[in-house]
C-alpha cells in the first residue's frame, strides 16, 4: 500500500519535473529567439561578470583573474571564474553550465584554442550575453559578421613582440652570433606571430645573426629546460642568444644554461616580463643575461575585455556602430630593456590592478595607458619571408 502511494508520488514528481523541463526549454528558446532582442541593453543589477582562463597556475592567467576581480569590485557586479584546466572541452562545458543558469553574462574568455571561439560565442549569443575574446580566434571569424553579442576580439600583436625581442638580442650581441628559439605550442597563433616577428626582424636588420634551431616547448618550463639541455649538448658554446615565446619557458631555459655554466656568456629575451623576470633583471642576474622583454599584464587584458563587453551590455556602446579596429583590436606592448625597466615597476604593486581599472573606467577601453589601442580591423599580418 505504502509502496503504491510512494509510486504515485514519484510519478507525480516526474510529471512536474517534465513540465518544468519543458518550460525551461521554452525559456531558453525564447532567450535565444533572435539576435535583435538579445542585444538590447541590460540593467546593471541583472549582470554577472565571467572570466574564463586557460589554467589557474600560470602567472599570466592568475593576473587575468586579478584584473577581473578588480573590475568586479569597481563596478559592483558579481564575478564568476571559469578554470578551463587547459582543456577546450572543460572550458566549453563550464561556460555552458553558467549560461544555463539563465544569468545575463558579461564575459572575458582567454580561449584554450582558436577553434573554441565560434562555439563559445554562439552559446553566449543565444543566451543574450556579451563576450570579448582574448588572444585566439580563427582568422576569418570576425565580430562584425557575428553580431553585437560578440563585442570584440582583442590581443597584443605577436609580431611586434617578436621584433622587439629580436632587437634586444641583436643589439646585445652586436649584430653577430647564433641564436636558438623556444616557441610555445606549435599551432598556437600567439606563438606563431611572435616567431614570425622575431625571424623577420633578424632577417631584415641583423644579417650577421644565425638562427640555429627552433624547438617548440609547449609553454612548459620543464620541457624548455630539457630542450635547452639537449641544444646545449648539440651546439655547446656556439649558442650566443636564446629566445623564448614566454617568460615561463625562459625561466626553464635559463636554468639549463646556468647548470651548464654558460649563463654569463649568453643573452636572453622573451615576452611577458613576469614579476619573477623583473626580479632577475633588477639583480643583473647572470651578467645581465636577460636583455629584452615585452611588457603587458594579464590584469590589463581581462579588465579591458570585460569592460568592453560591459559597455556593450549596458548600451553605452553599440558594437555594430564601432570602427573595425575596435572590434578586432591590437593593444600596445612595450619593449623593455634593463635601462627602462624602472618605468614598469609601478605596474606590479598590490594596488596595480585596481589603479589600472580606475584609469580604464575613466578613459575607456581603448585609451588607457600603457595598453592603448594601436591597430586591428582584421587578422594580424605576418611579415613575408
Amino acid at each position, binding site marked *: 500500500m505504502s509502496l503504491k502511494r510512494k509510486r504515485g508520488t514519484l510519478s507525480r514528481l516526474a510529471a512536474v519535473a517534465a513540465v518544468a523541463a519543458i518550460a525551461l526549454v521554452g525559456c531558453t528558446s525564447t532567450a535565444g529567439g533572435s539576435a535583435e532582442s538579445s542585444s538590447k541593453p541590460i540593467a546593471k543589477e541583472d549582470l554577472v561578470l565571467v572570466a574564463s582562463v586557460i589554467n589557474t597556475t600560470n602567472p599570466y592567467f592568475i593576473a587575468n*583573474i586579478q584584473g577581473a576581480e578588480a573590475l568586479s569590485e569597481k563596478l559592483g557586479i558579481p564575478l564568476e571564474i571559469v578554470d578551463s584546466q587547459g582543456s577546450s572541452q572543460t572550458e566549453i562545458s563550464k561556460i555552458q553550465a553558467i549560461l544555463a543558469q539563465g544569468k545575463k553574462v558579461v564575459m572575458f574568455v582567454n580561449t584554450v584554442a582558436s577553434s573554441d571561439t565560434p562555439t563559445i560565442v554562439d552559446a553566449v549569443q543565444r543566451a543574450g550575453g556579451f563576450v570579448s575574446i582574448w588572444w585566439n580566434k580563427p582568422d576569418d571569424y570576425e565580430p562584425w559578421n557575428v553580431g553585437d553579442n560578440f563585442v570584440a576580439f582583442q590581443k597584443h600583436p605577436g609580431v611586434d613582440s617578436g621584433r622587439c625581442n629580436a632587437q634586444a638580442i641583436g643589439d646585445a650581441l652586436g649584430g653577430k652570433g647564433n641564436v636558438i628559439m623556444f616557441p610555445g605550442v*606549435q599551432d598556437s597563433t600567439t606563438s606563431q606571430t611572435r616567431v614570425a616577428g622575431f625571424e623577420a626582424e633578424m632577417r631584415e636588420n641583423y644579417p650577421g645573426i644565425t638562427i640555429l634551431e627552433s624547438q617548440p616547448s609547449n609553454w612548459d618550463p*620543464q620541457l624548455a629546460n630539457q630542450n635547452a*639541455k*639537449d641544444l646545449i*649538448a648539440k651546439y655547446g658554446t656556439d649558442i650566443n642568444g636564446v629566445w623564448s615565446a614566454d617568460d615561463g619557458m625562459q*625561466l626553464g631555459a635559463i*636554468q639549463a644554461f646556468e647548470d651548464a655554466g654558460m649563463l654569463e656568456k649568453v643573452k636572453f629575451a622573451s615576452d611577458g616580463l613576469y614579476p619573477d623576470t623583473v626580479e632577475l633583471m633588477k639583480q643583473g642576474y647572470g651578467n645581465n643575461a636577460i636583455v629584452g622583454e615585452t611588457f603587458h599584464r594579464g590584469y590589463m587584458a581581462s579588465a579591458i575585455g570585460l569592460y568592453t563587453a560591459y559597455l556593450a551590455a549596458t548600451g553605452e556602446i553599440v558594437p555594430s556602430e564601432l570602427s573595425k579596429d575596435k572590434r578586432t583590436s591590437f593593444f600596445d606592448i612595450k619593449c623593455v630593456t634593463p635601462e627602462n625597466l624602472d618605468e614598469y615597476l609601478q605596474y606590479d604593486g598590490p594596488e596595480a590592478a585596481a589603479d589600472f581599472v580606475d584609469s580604464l573606467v575613466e578613459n575607456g577601453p581603448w585609451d588607457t595607458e600603457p595598453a592603448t589601442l594601436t591597430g586591428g580591423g582584421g587578422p594580424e599580418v605576418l611579415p613575408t619571408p
Partner: protein
Amino acid sequence: MVQQISTTKSVSGPDIAATRIPVPGAKRRGRFRGLAEPVSLLIALVVLIIVFSLFNERFLTWANAQNVLNQSAIPLIIAVGATLVILLGSIDLSVEGVMGATGMVWILLSANSRGGADLGPWAWVIALSVALALGLANGLIFTALKVPSFIVTLGMWYVGLGLATILYGTDLLPRLTDERLTGWTSQLTLGLPNSFWVALLVIGLGSFVVKSTRIGRVTLAIGNSETIVRSSGLPAFRVKVTVFAIAAVLSGLGGILATIQLDIGSPTVGSGVLFIVIPAVVIGGTHLGGGKGGILRTVLGVFLLTILNNGLILAGVESSYQSAVTGAILVAAIVFAAWSQRDRLRVAK
C-alpha cells in the same frame, strides 16, 4: 568463499589446459625467453645510439651522456615505483599530481623567494609524508573499497594537482634561494650527475625489494593470481597498500628533484612524466597484466625513450616531424625487442 573461487578457477582455468598442448619449438623458445627480451632491447638501444652518432658527432660525447643521464634520472626514479604497481597488475596514474603536491609543499617549506619558514630537512620529511598519504589513500581505496586502481589513481592525480594549486595560490612563482640546492641535480659527483646517483640508489633498492623480499615475491604472485595468494594466506592486502605507498613516495621524490632542477615551484612540475614512465615500463617488457617483468628492464625502457628524444634533437629532425618519427622508431624497436616472444600462446590484446 575462497575455496569456491579457487575451484572454479581450476576447473575453467584456460592457461593450465593450454600449456599442455605441445607446440614445436616452444620449449626451446621458452628457455631463451627470459634472456632474449632484454638482450634484444639492448640491441635496439645500441643500434639507436650508433645511428644517432652517425648523424651528429656530439651525440656520443661524455657531455651529452651526462645530459641524457640527468634527464633520465627523474623518470627512472618514478618508473621503479610504476614497475612495482604494474607487477601487481594495477596501474598508478597519480604520478604527476603527487609530484606537483610534493614539490610544492617542499619548496614552500624550504628557503624560497616568497619567504616563509625554512624547515631544512623537515621540508623533505613533511613533503614526502604528503606523498605517502596520497599513496596510502590510493592503496587503501583500491584494496579495501575494491575500486579499480585506474579510477582511484586518476582521481588522486587531480587531488594532488588541486592541493598543489591551492598551496601555490596567486603569489609570485616560488624560486629556490638556497644556493647549495640550486643546480644540485645536474652537478657532478664522480663524473655522474647527482640526480642520477639518486636514481641508481632507488633502482638498487627497487631491484632488491623485487628479488629478495617478501613484498617483492608477494607482488609478483598477486600479479600472477591473487586468488592463489589469498588462499595460501599471504598478506595480499598489506602488500598492495605498501606498493602503492612506495610508488607515491618515489613520485614525491621525483617531484622534489624536478623542482630543484627547474629552480622554481610549479603545480605542473610533473607534466608529461606519466607518458614516459608507463610506456617505459611496458617497453621494458613488464606485462600490464602483472606478474612478469622487472625493474632493470624498465631502466632500459626509460633509456630508450630518453635517448630517442635527445637523439632526434641532436640529429636535427625538424620539430614538426619529431613526434611522428618518435612513434615510428618506438614501434619498430618494440617489434624487434619482442620478436622472441611471439609464440602462439601469447595473444596480443
